[in-house]
């Protein structure tokens, strides 16, 4: 056996398995996206079995592009992913800098901070939307009620009471509404993934060159300019990695959306596909192909950006 054959044989199972896993379902999706295929139809029973004779060409794609929910789902997907990325990177940077010093109980702080990352998405959704954000029974409802009681109490004050009586009642926000549920999703996912960013930025900060900073201090550079000119460039690679890993996970975000926005009109691409897949498989497949294209655009961009640094 030559030097080359054995390594190839060792890699084959992994490569082959992933190849089958990727190609077989994807080619089926591609096929279904070009035919008329529904699960239930009393008028056209021949459409309920996949067959080339039901060829529809680009009809499914046209149908999806004209569906009113499609662009909502696309823009929502992009909105949710970008917001989460922005929040986690900025917040992660601040917290990492904050705890990158020695102080009593630092180990415990680390453990407390990283915990949300290990919470399963289903529990994350259930916990936030019920126990915390519910407008009546959750902590939000209780907090709003408390504030209103406080304002009510102040109305009885002499002089000042007049001022407080002009204040409106605070209204709780229902995070199950169409417009607000993406905010709820962003909140809960950012809560879960900020710790991940903190952990990585903190590790990276520890390898920062301290002598450079000391020199900068002697030269009279302010803390802020040190942060912008020395720390942020040093963190470049870890920021890129945080962005890449999170994009991988958040583009296929599903459990949280399903739990928060079930049936309220708010959706991202995976959720829209799930809705179509209840009956119209052709449309679901065409949407799937659009999702693959969107993911590929982002993947090419990210892998170009991050891939090189990973290989060094």
């Amino acid at each position, binding site marked *: 056996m030559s030097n080359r054959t*054995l*390594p*190839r044989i*060792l*890699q084959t199972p*992994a*490569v082959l*398995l*992933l190849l089958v896993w*990727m190609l077989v*379902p*994807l080619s089926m*999706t591609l096929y279904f996206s070009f035919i008329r295929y529904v699960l239930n139809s009393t008028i056209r029973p021949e459409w309920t079995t996949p067959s080339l004779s039901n060829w529809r060409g680009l009809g499914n794609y046209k149908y999806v592009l004209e569906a009113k929910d499609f662009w909502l789902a696309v823009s929502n997907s992009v909105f949710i992913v970008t917001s989460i990325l922005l929040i986690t990177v900025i917040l992660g940077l601040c917290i990492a800098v*904050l*705890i990158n010093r020695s*102080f*009593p109980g*630092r180990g415990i*702080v*680390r*453990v*407390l*901070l*990283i*915990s949300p*990352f*290990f*919470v*399963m998405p*289903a*529990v994350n959704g*259930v*916990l936030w*939307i*019920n*126990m*915390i954000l*519910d407008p009546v*029974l959750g*902590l939000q409802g209780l907090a709003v009620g408390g504030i209103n009681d406080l304002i009510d109490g102040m109305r009885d004050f002499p002089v000042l009471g007049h001022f407080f009586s002009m204040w409106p009642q605070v209204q709780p926000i229902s995070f199950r509404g169409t417009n607000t549920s993406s905010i709820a999703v962003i909140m809960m996912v950012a809560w879960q993934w900020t*710790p991940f960013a903190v*952990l*990585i930025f903190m590790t990276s900060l520890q390898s920062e060159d301290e002598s450079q900073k000391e020199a900068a201090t002697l030269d009279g550079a302010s803390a802020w300019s040190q942060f912008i000119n020395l720390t942020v460039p040093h963190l470049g690679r*870890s920021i890129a*990695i945080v962005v890449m890993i999170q994009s*991988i996970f958040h*583009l296929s975000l*599903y*459990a949280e959306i399903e*739990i928060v926005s079930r049936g309220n009109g708010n959706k991202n691409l*995976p959720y829209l596909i799930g809705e179509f897949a209840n009956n119209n498989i052709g449309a679901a*497949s065409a*949407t*799937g192909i659009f*999702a*693959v294209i969107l*993911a590929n655009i982002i*993947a090419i961009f990210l*892998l170009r950006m991050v891939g090189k640094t*990973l290989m060094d």
Partner: protein
Amino acid sequence: MATVTQTSKFSKIAWPTLAWIVALIFFFPIFWLVFTSFKTDADAVNPEFLWRFTPTLENYTSMTDNYDYWRFATNSVITSFFATLFALVVGVPAAYAMAFNPSRHTKDILMWMLSTKMLPAAAVLYPMTFLTKNILGIYDTHFLVIVVLCLINLPIAVWMLFTYFKEIPKEIIEAGKMDGVSTWGEIKDILIPLAWGGIASTALLTFIFCWNEAYWTVRLTTIDAATLSTLIEGNRAPEGLFFGRLSAVSTAAIAPIVVLGWFCQKQLVAGLTFGAVK
């Protein structure tokens, strides 16, 4: 000089305090979940008992009756364990070959593997249902969940292992070759003992991802192979009627993994950044 000492004294107290506050805020939702799990369903939604209440274990003792917790938990353990095992069995030889006998294509293969993670799962939802239900007849079986969990985590497992293996000096492996050790012997007697820590962290992280997976496990199971994700998602919105018992079952679903996570948080960084951040 006086001002300098003053600010440093201030910052010695202020920044750590702020760090503690931030950590407590982040941990608060988990604390609240565990806290609520000790309230009865009625107390849990009653503002009067927000902080002071009579703690009860009722939610935990009746968890089996209310939710059939143990069946779902067993499924989670079985599927996550075997998926992790298979990911290692397939991943270790592949990562070994890539780290010690890299070819021109190794980088491309690794990149391609990572790119399979970007394929949106929802895009192949119906074909997977169709294949497993109508053609292979393995819908809602442990076997299917194990295979799927193994495959979706394989790219990250290979990447992590590759990173750890790359740090082992090549000379050690080559010395083994000189002594006429077989490839299997090299993996078993040289590589695995040397990279034990890396393999263990890969296993832990893969196990965590398997346990928390919530798309395929929900979509490809109904009853027999359903995991804890399915259980929780199925009870998502009782409109406050069952906050107590829902908190208890959620706590039980996340506790093993959160505790496991505490122990491997250091390795997590090396693993998830593929060794690029140290």
